[in-house]
């Protein structure tokens, strides 16, 4: 069980993020009113990721404690993106909010991930998996990129929930 949570879940998350990001970008492009705004969205993501990265580094709590919530948070954002069916006018504002949340969580996750023992192993697997999955996805006729985004959101959410359940089990065993 520990092997799964330590080795495979971070891999799923990091590979999934890369695989899903093109679909997310398609959504974001639809939402962006101009190219300038589109790039600003990514600037917000980066600034926010820097903050998330740093928050992990200066955190005093055990590093693992927030990770399930990080996954669940990312999952929620992707699920919400999938749920927004109508493109109403306040969407750019919501997208900016999503970018900040995603950046923060991804920065934090990245900072945590590179400190894990399995990270070096992931690096190669990561690239190979991304490549294979992308080729696989290219053969799938897209009905809506939104369906991929929300599916990935659900996977992240389940990963987070699974880690939380595992944690509570571990703590009850140690008690």
């Amino acid at each position, binding site marked *: 069980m520990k092997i799964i949570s330590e080795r495979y879940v971070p891999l799923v998350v990091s590979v999934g993020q890369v695989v899903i990001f093109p679909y997310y970008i398609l959504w974001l492009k639809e939402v962006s*009113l101009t190219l300038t*705004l589109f790039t*600003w969205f990514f600037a917000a993501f980066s600034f926010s990721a820097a*903050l998330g990265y*740093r928050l992990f580094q200066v955190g005093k709590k055990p590093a693992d404690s927030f990770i399930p919530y990080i996954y669940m948070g990312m999952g929620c954002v992707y699920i919400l993106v999938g749920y927004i069916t109508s493109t109403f006018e306040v969407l750019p504002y919501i997208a900016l909010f999503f970018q*900040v949340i995603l950046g923060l969580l991804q920065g934090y996750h990245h900072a945590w991930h590179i400190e894990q023992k399995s990270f070096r192993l992931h690096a190669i697997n990561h690239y190979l998996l991304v490549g294979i999955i992308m080729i696989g996805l290219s053969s799938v006729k897209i009905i809506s990129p939104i369906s991929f985004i929300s599916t990935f959101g659900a996977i992240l959410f389940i990963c987070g929930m699974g880690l939380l359940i595992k944690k509570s089990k571990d703590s009850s065993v140690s008690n």
Partner: protein
Amino acid sequence: MEPSQLKSNKQVIHKNPWFLGILLCIFVVSVLASIPIEKRKYGLSQSNLTTDYTGLLPERIKKIVKAGDRSEIQEMVKEANEMGYHISIAGLQHSQGGHTYYKDNVVLDMKTFNKVLEIDKQNQTIKVESGASWEEVQEAIQPYGLALKVTQSQSIFTIGGSLSVNAHGRDIRFGPMAGTVREMTILTPTGEIKTVTRNDSEEWMKYVFGGYGLFGVILDVTLELTENDVYTIHTEELKTNEYEDYFANLIRNDDTSMHYARVSVAPNSFLDEMYVIDYIKTGKVDHKTPLKKERGARIGKLALDIGRQGGSLEDLFWENQKLLIKSLDGDEVTRNNAMRGNSAFMEFTKPGRVEVLQEFFIPVEHYEEYMSDLKRILPPNDKNDDFKIHNITVRYAAKDDYTYLNYAKEDMFGLVILIQHGLKEKEIHNAKTIIQEWTDLTLKHGGGYYLPYYHYQSKEQFRKSYPSWEMFQEEKLIRDPNGVFQNIFYDYYF
């Protein structure tokens, strides 16, 4: 402090979470404040398809010629006569029915032709090139304590464009816009430059006004002006069936200069409630108050977007609108500022959908019966419908004897309607069906519809609305034998 420590302090500042947090907050707030209101791309383009404000009629055009000096434009018209190509005239392209371009032909872009040539304070006139916007005219005349006699409720249009559609606005005293033009210089379809007046025996003005750019290029106009009066705003809530009496009193009373009304399109009060806004003379003239700038567009747009959701949210929007209008009661405003309503908040940017305008004219004394009949063909709650009505404004359009293709054959109320619908073929067809039914009802009541908008109406409806169309066409063939001036609008209706 030792140098090494200083160095390390410098290194950590950009890694300080507080610094990063503040940086992020500042950035996010500035992006929030800079999110643009408008996404749509419309207008003239040679590399892509050209569209007008609605974007419903995209076409590829051959060439865009920016208006230089008048001899250049004259040469171009002469060349078109010889070479056999067509010219369309474009200003700011707020006309929505393909009036400003034509497939595979040349567009004359008049936006650069915008100089103020002369202001005569004594005689209260301004001579200005036709590509100038009303805003530019207002900026020129405001320091003299002068104001326009007739203009649209927003100042974002070009003078040439407004005259070509013989626009009307909130003023109820000075008649149609065409009546406020003392003199103008036109370039005829055969390439002659003529200065014409209303008494001109050749009646050029009658064809150029409301001529949709088909009878020549308006080069400059001399407009009659009036004082920049100060008005007190009076607002009142009415039932629709009280409006005719209210207006009859208002028009008898000379104190009111401008007026318009709004009709509820919210489900709970659909076409039953109205509010009116009157601008009452105070006897004061203003030379100092600056022209107002558009403010609060973002909030206005958000409120309108809420209303656009329909159902109970539209009821909420209507109630708020009434409160907002009530809060204006008793305020003072200058004539110039009353003539420059906000527009940015109306921008609509939903992919796959479009917001269009339609305007129906109805004889003043038919208003009550018409509104009552209208309730039978329109659903009060369009929340789940593709065809949605967001706004109906009522304006007064006085009888017009200045143009041939005139919409006000007698004193009329113009109902300006903001409509939203989808862009799929069946959605456009559905919109067309509803608008044609609406047009039939209007015709039944002795009214008509306005031509600067997208042509949902049939040719037959056009001919009934504008019985002088035949004469208009005959004159077009006589005055423009080579068909130099052409556009999609003409192609569709004639």
